[in-house]
């Protein structure tokens, strides 16, 4: 199980009505592992609406899970630090991820990472594609084991 020395926040961003764009909220829904060192938050399509709440939580580290186009094979997972977060993500929220991260950096002392998952299907459908769901389920296991978060201590 998790063994963390500091407080980590995991955010899921995306639209569950847009196929693989819902991968962030899907993972948050599966995690259900909150403890004194870890909190999870489903920010859906309006992450900026949670900035107040996030700044009050004052995390040391924030992982944002979102669909992101790296032009890789569907289901590919890439973890990038705050400097390398792309200007555009594929989510339909109306303030760009870069601006959201910029605001997080102003209102918290946290290190911010993006866990991006290459989507396969962004049509107006509910549910993830098979490939992306498999990647998401693996990610859930890795987060619960603590391997991902430890790697970015």
């Amino acid at each position, binding site marked *: 199980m998790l063994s963390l020395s500091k407080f980590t926040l995991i955010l899921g961003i995306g639209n569950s009505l847009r196929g693989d764009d819902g991968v962030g909220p899907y993972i948050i829904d599966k995690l259900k592992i909150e403890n004194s060192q870890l909190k999870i938050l489903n920010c*859906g*399509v*309006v992450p*900026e*609406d949670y*900035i*107040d709440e996030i700044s009050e939580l004052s995390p040391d580290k924030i992982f944002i899970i979102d669909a992101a186009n790296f032009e890789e094979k569907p289901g590919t997972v890439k973890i990038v630090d705050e400097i390398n977060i792309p*200007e*555009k993500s594929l989510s*339909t*929220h*109306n*303030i*760009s991820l*870069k*601006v959201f991260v*910029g*605001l997080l*950096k*102003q*209102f918290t002392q946290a290190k911010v990472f993006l866990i991006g998952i290459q989507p396969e299907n962004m049509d107006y459908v509910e549910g993830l594609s098979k490939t992306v769901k498999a990647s998401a389920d693996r990610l859930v296991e890795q987060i619960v084991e603590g391997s991902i978060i430890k790697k970015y201590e």
Partner: protein
Amino acid sequence: MTKNVKIDVQYVTRVEGHGNIIIDVKNGQLVDCKLQIIEPPRFFEAMVRGRKFGDIPLITSRICGICAVSHNTVANRSVENAIGVVPSKQTELLRKILFHGEMIQSHILHVYFLVAPDFLKVGSVIPLASTHPDIVKRALRLKKLGNHICEVLAGRHIHPIASVVGGFTKIPSKKELAELKKEIEKHLPDFEATIELCKTLKIPSFERRTEYVALYKDDEYAFIDGVIKSSDGDKLNLKDYKKKAAEYIVKHSAAKHTKGNRDSYMVGALARVNNNFSQLSPLAKEVAKQLGLKTPCYNPYMNSIAQVVECAHCYEDIIRLLDIAIDTAKDEEITFTPKAGTGVGAVEAPRGILFHEYTFDDAGVCTAANCIIPTGQNLENIDLDMRKLVPEIIDLPQDEIRLMLEMLVRAYDPCISCATHFLDVKFV
């Protein structure tokens, strides 16, 4: 005057979508001056052809992530006019509440995130969060309130899902409406602080008389339905909208321009306040006075101030409307028999008058569609404003000319995403 000025602002920042400002002055003579719109069109009108009437508002609300309620509402109204549906009084009431929420959300986003950084001498909202954290937190609270209103009324923070042709699939309970009212009332200090902030902004002085176009109703400050009213004095029924918004193509813009009585006209908060000032709420009139907005106002930079005046109107009016809804809310079934036909709808989106028109066959399938977006209607007016402004400020350093032009474009709150129907937000 022999000055040469060459300005090529690639991707004007803090507007929604991609546009370039091109200015070329040779030997003191203005050679070129335009706002290039370089987004590719998104072909929403083609996308909805072949779809059933009920799909149309859900699809077209995706034109924009900021004024999704406007696109949803106008699509509902035009479909209803086409297939012969008359919405209930309760539907009209709930749509107005929903609409006020979007107006607050969109205006706040514009004034705080896109306009304020210019006046507070920072590059964007991110450094603003460092220099003025309280201001940014307040903006985020008010924007969140707008999204919350949309969630309670229409089931989602953006892109409403419960607001459909004929009414609402779910009516909020009296308890939910009462809680929403309390939540809105809690934000009064944030609205007051917004007005105080705006008192400190030094709005550039520039004037160009133009035609102002907005919806008008006899009995209220119009946001949904009405007739098309011009500051030149004429009024048109909605079915004649193409006489006012006559579209044409220009080489430098992927979005069509429009013209009315003159070479250009302006739509948006300033046009609405100019045309319908007497119908604003008492609080909004007082805010206009405090912020120095006297009508008729010919300064396009004052559009942002007009937006704050409208925020005050929406704040006061939404509480009044919620009181009615709390007393009267009841479940309602949506029943109607659609017929073939053509219908036009119009709303005042945050950025100005928005028209949708659809035609349906006997099976309720869309056979023709047309959307005319506020930003498209403002583009020619922006070009003509720039053409008048540049000679007036030609003696300023080039960087200041550039900033004044960028601020002018931003004052219109252009949604290039909507105008070309493309969605992207670019900040510095």
